[in-house]
């Protein structure tokens, strides 16, 4: 394995988002806080998702996970499509890096961005309301593996898209609805039967639900089941991404 090569690509990907930290780290934290202020204020008195848990407290893990997932996706997909469109991806493709090293570096960098943004939302939210912590390990596991799954999906989108417009379509028509409808703002038990059943086909729901369990020790489905779905999603997406990278799909002619 070209360990230094892998480390360099990881470092480059981290440096890339760090250099535009206002856009990649601070802006998503601010967006999540705005959601918290608006939805928390409007719905605090009207909604109780889990017994004994204030709505604002319920909302915070959902917003955290939404930020984690969306930013992990945004990192790998935008880095890849920018490099493709500007043409500088060749500087990576002409090196001795294998497709596995390429994959791991892109995924890990995206996980770091997702987790850092999630932590930022958490720290900022603590100013408004204290949160219980049932299990830090469960939180971290769902954040890391969930963001890894979205990072792989980001690589697929970045490989597939030929222009920014297509990537925006992927983000707006697939990622955004799936995260919004994953139970960020509500417990699926408050939904009509049909929508409740449909939510079980949304893998983002399990990421969210398991993550929330890490705070409250309460969830809509069992955390084991959620974690299994997250791992299965990650495994399937990784297998597909690795195969696309091995073939050089849309990057090696």
């Amino acid at each position, binding site marked *: 394995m*070209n360990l*230094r090569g892998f480390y*360099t690509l990881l470092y480059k990907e981290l440096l890339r988002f760090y250099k535009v930290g206002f856009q990649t780290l601070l802006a998503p934290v601010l967006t999540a806080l705005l959601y918290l202020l608006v939805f928390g204020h409007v719905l605090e008195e009207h909604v109780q998702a889990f017994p004994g848990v204030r709505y604002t407290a319920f909302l915070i893990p959902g917003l955290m996970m939404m930020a984690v997932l969306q930013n992990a996706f945004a990192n790998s997909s935008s880095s890849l499509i920018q*490099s493709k469109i*500007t043409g500088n991806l060749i500087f990576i493709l002409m090196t*001795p890096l294998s497709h596995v090293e390429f994959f791991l570096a892109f995924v890990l960098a995206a996980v770091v961005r997702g987790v850092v943004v999630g932590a930022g939302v958490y720290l900022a939210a603590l100013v408004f309301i204290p949160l219980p912590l049932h299990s830090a390990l469960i939180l971290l596991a769902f954040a890391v593996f969930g963001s890894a799954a979205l990072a792989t999906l980001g690589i697929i989108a970045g490989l597939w898209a030929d222009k920014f417009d297509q990537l925006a379509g992927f983000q707006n028509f697939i990622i955004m609805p799936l995260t919004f409808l994953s139970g960020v703002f509500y417990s699926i038990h408050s939904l009509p039967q049909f929508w409740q059943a449909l939510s079980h086909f949304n893998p983002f729901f399990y990421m969210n639900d398991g993550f929330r369990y890490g705070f409250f020790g309460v969830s809509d489905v069992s955390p084991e089941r959620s974690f299994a779905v997250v791992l299965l999603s990650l495994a399937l997406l990784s297998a597909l991404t690795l195969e696309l990278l091995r073939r050089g799909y849309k990057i*090696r002619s």
Partner: protein
Amino acid sequence: MTAAVAIRGVHKRYRNVHALKGVDLEIRRGEFFGLLGPNGAGKSTLINILAGLARLDAGTVAVLGHDVVKDYRQARRVLGVVPQELVYDPFFSVREVLRLQAGYFGLGRENDAWIEELLDALMLADKAEANMRSLSGGMKRRVLVAQALVHRPPVVVLDEPTAGVDVELRQSLWQFIQRLHHEGHTIVLTTHYLEEAEALCERIAILDRGAVIALDSKQGLLARGMDSVMFTVHTESPITQLPAALESKVKRRQGNELVLQLHRRNDAIADVVDELRAHGAVITDLHTEKPDLEDVFLELTRKERRP
């Protein structure tokens, strides 16, 4: 001795286009090799296969004995490619770009001295901390050269390295490339400036429509044009009409200048002058010269296009 680059029976298709049709080519170690051809000849496809940016459909390509598919890691370690397009990463400074590029090849801080040497040699030292976006086109081109050399590859491919580059930079780039060649690097050059290839390359391959149509030493190629002589006449006013026999020999016509490609033995210059005068031309100056690489190149590629 293992060839610097060994290309055997390479085929490449893009949907309906047969871009490379069984290319065979061997580039020796330490050679300054020219790869010429008109647009769409397949030069860039061949270089992309060499660099791992394109996949071949059939055949084999090896760099210093390392197969570019089976042993791609080693093949890429011994190869540096200066791409044709002026591409760069807008997030980083020149030094960051070079350190990152070295890192991909497994090199760390121990390579910093070489990076400094490259920055100096390519006159980039005072721009080392500048962001890539702020550099002029010529400087970006020099960074591309530095990136290709950052891992000290013994084989260097330059794909149109001086396209759109001013004369001064072109000269300094060539001095640097010649220095590399004298130090033992194998240099493979594609260029549209045939005078560059004529001045620098020891052997030249001409690629046309996906096939090698000539592979020879520079002298050997130039000798192919020895049967021809270029005859240039300047007239008082532009010649609008020529006899059919001369019309077919016109190589170039620009204002008052007319260039004819004559056969050394079959065409008598005195007869040509008489014919021109008979058609009303008032000749103010004339001279002959041996064909250069450009003439040979055009002749060979034209032949290929004749039915």
